[in-house]
């Protein structure tokens, strides 16, 4: 009986202990559910915070290349010096050590080091040699952080096109600003474990938070060698004419690609503080001007296209003075009867006015718009201007005449060269392109800008007639003989327009220009040279045309374009170049 009793007690105890275990397991299971399921995210973050760390990788701003793959703008990581003033025991001595290395005033450095703030930048983006010198001092409380620094290895080349970035690598001007979103890249984080010494350990390999760290690269249509030639010759022309500024654009006539866009004065974006803010502006698109006689080309092309005139038509040029609605229009010479080609060759304002009146206001306005004037070209650069033209209803008879020879209307140099390219390529207005391609850091194409024809403006026949008319300007007797290029045919037009000053036209300030294309018969390049306020050689044929000639000579040579005319043995004999005479009968037949 005793045995039985004790066996029952044993079984009871076992059941009791088992129950105890079950209860304990249930509590453990509940706790596990609470920790592993309900609070899993929170606790995982907590443990990650204790044992892992995230390394922030700075975004690398994309590189900007010219059309041949030469770097025009690139980013490098450099050191920025910071201080934790509370850890610096003797700010005065430290300031005396740092100031000469950083080439900063002693008082400014001391002010930073003696600050009550917990963190101060002493100097951002220091030179590597300066950083090495400061590191060698081993001063407690000083440290370096990596920051991205933009470099422009070609210095002044295409500075106004490229623009520049601010201290936080944000695009402020030019391409840098226009494409900031695409090229700046994104900050990326790498998660790593931390060991007892605080070192990073990638136990689970590299786990990036975001793959797209690097910014996209840009390939421009600019050719840095053509850009250099354009800038060099423009600067020579501006200096020779003692002018205020200058602009030159070189465009591929077939594609609308801008091969060079030069603005003088130049500036070096690596030394931004030393440049005048006025020099930052890309005048090729932001400055409007009255085009003067270079505009006659489009008037004549419109009139020929509409069939209101023929190349052989003769116009009486009133011997230099033409009365229109209580105004007198003058020519710079006293001309009698001139045909269309000679009106262009001698740049007769009176002849142009008469052609304009024959064309009619409505048609004139229609073609001005079709050639792309008074509207932005849509080139992907910031702050592009559209130009100005009086409304049709406000266009008086006199205004109609002045527009005919390029007054009372304003355009940008880019609009002008694009319109000349349309005549050069047979009448197609191309979309100007400055960015050829956008690619990611692995070389994959993000965007490719192919040539786009915006519209046909004039027929190929009219374009051919215009090419032959414009060739007359450069041969002896024309206003643009100094634009001739030894060994090549040139078509173009000079322009000199008075600037507006205090509500009227200035007697001393002018805009002198030459716009045209080379080689005339099989055009490759459309170019414009614009000189603002020349003090010497005030006419377009005197200051802009020679620059056009020198630019064209060097660029055609660089592009290996075969000469299409007999080269003069003596460069001084360029004026005697053999050029095809203007063939009215043949053109009429066309």
């Amino acid at each position, binding site marked *: 009986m005793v045995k039985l009793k004790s066996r029952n007690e044993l079984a009871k105890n076992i059941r009791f202990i088992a129950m105890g275990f079950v209860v304990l397991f249930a509590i453990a299971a509940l706790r596990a559910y609470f920790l592993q399921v309900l609070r899993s995210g929170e606790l995982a973050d907590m443990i990650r915070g204790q044992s892992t760390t995230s390394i922030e*990788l700075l975004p*690398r701003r994309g*590189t900007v290349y010219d059309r041949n793959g*030469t*770097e*025009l703008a*690139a*980013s*490098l*990581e450099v050191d920025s010096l910071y201080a934790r003033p509370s850890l610096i025991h003797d700010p005065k001595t430290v300031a005396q050590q740092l100031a000469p290395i950083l080439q900063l005033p002693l008082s400014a450095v001391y002010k930073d080091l003696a600050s009550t703030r917990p963190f101060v930048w002493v100097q951002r983006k220091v030179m590597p040699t300066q950083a090495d010198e400061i590191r060698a001092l081993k001063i407690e409380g000083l440290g370096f952080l990596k920051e991205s620094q933009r*470099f422009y*290895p*070609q*210095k002044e*080349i295409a500075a106004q096109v490229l623009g520049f970035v601010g201290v936080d690598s944000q695009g402020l001007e030019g391409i840098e600003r226009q494409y900031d979103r695409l090229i700046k890249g994104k900050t990326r984080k*790498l998660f*790593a*474990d931390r060991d007892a010494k605080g*070192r*990073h*350990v*990638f*136990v*689970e*390999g*590299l786990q990036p938070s975001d793959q797209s760290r690097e910014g996209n690269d840009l390939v421009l249509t600019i050719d*840095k*060698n053509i850009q*250099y*030639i354009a800038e*060099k010759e423009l600067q020579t022309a501006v200096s020779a004419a003692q002018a205020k500024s200058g602009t030159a654009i070189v465009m591929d006539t077939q594609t609308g690609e801008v091969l060079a866009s030069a603005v003088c004065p130049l500036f070096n974006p690596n030394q931004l503080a030393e440049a005048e803010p006025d020099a930052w502006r890309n005048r090729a698109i932001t400055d409007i001007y009255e085009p003067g006689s270079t505009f006659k080309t489009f008037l004549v092309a419109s009139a020929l296209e509409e069939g209101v005139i023929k190349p052989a038509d003769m116009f009486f040029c009133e011997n230099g003075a033409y009365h229109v609605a209580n105004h007198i229009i003058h020519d710079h010479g006293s001309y009698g009867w001139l045909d269309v080609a000679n009106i262009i060759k001698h740049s007769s304002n009176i002849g142009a006015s008469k052609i304009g009146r024959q064309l009619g206001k409505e048609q004139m306005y229609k073609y001005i718009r079709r050639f792309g004037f008074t509207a932005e070209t849509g080139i992907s650069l910031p702050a592009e201007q559209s130009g100005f033209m009086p409304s049709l209803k406000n266009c008086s008879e006199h205004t109609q005449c002045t527009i005919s020879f390029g007054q009372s209307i304003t355009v940008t140099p880019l609009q002008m060269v694009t319109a000349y390219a349309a005549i050069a390529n047979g009448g197609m207005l191309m979309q100007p392109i400055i960015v050829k391609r956008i690619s990611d850091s692995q070389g994959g194409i993000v965007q490719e800008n192919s040539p786009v024809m915006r519209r046909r403006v004039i027929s190929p026949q009219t374009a051919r007639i215009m090419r032959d008319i414009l060739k007359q300007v450069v041969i002896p007797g024309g206003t643009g003989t100094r634009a001739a290029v*030894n*060994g*090549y045919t040139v078509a173009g037009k000079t322009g000199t327009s008075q600037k507006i000053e205090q509500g009227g036209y200035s007697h001393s300030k002018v805009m002198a220009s030459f716009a045209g294309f080379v080689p005339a018969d099989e055009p490759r390049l459309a170019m414009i040279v614009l000189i603002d306020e020349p003090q010497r050689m005030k006419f377009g044929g005197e200051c802009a045309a020679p620059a056009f000639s020198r630019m064209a*000579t*060097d660029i055609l*040579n660089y592009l290996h374009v*075969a*000469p299409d005319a007999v*080269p*003069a*043995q003596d*460069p001084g004999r360029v004026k005697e170049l053999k050029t095809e005479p203007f063939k009215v009968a043949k053109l009429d037949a066309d």
Partner: protein
Amino acid sequence: MQNFLTSAEKFIHTNVLARQRVRRDSDVSRREMAALVCMSLVIMLAFFMFLWVRIYSLEIGYRISDDHRLNEELIQENQKLKVERASLKSSSRLEAIALNQLGMSVPRPEQVVIIPW
């Protein structure tokens, strides 16, 4: 006779069968022991394997960390060299070297010979 048989059975029970039972018990405990040892070995092996993998992954982690740093440094160095190369290839510098040091000049149009092909 009856007594003899009873005493013989007793003898067999106490001496032969009991010895056999002891031997059987001893065989069982030896097998259990062997199994226990084997299991312990397996557990220890697994533990050491885990430890080895853990240490190896830690070592790989350090190596990745070093390589990552080296990679970043090399990318920076490469970028610096590209910028330096672009700077050395600047048109103004090359023109100055060509004209002043090498005595070269831009060919005039009449000097250019087009080779038909």
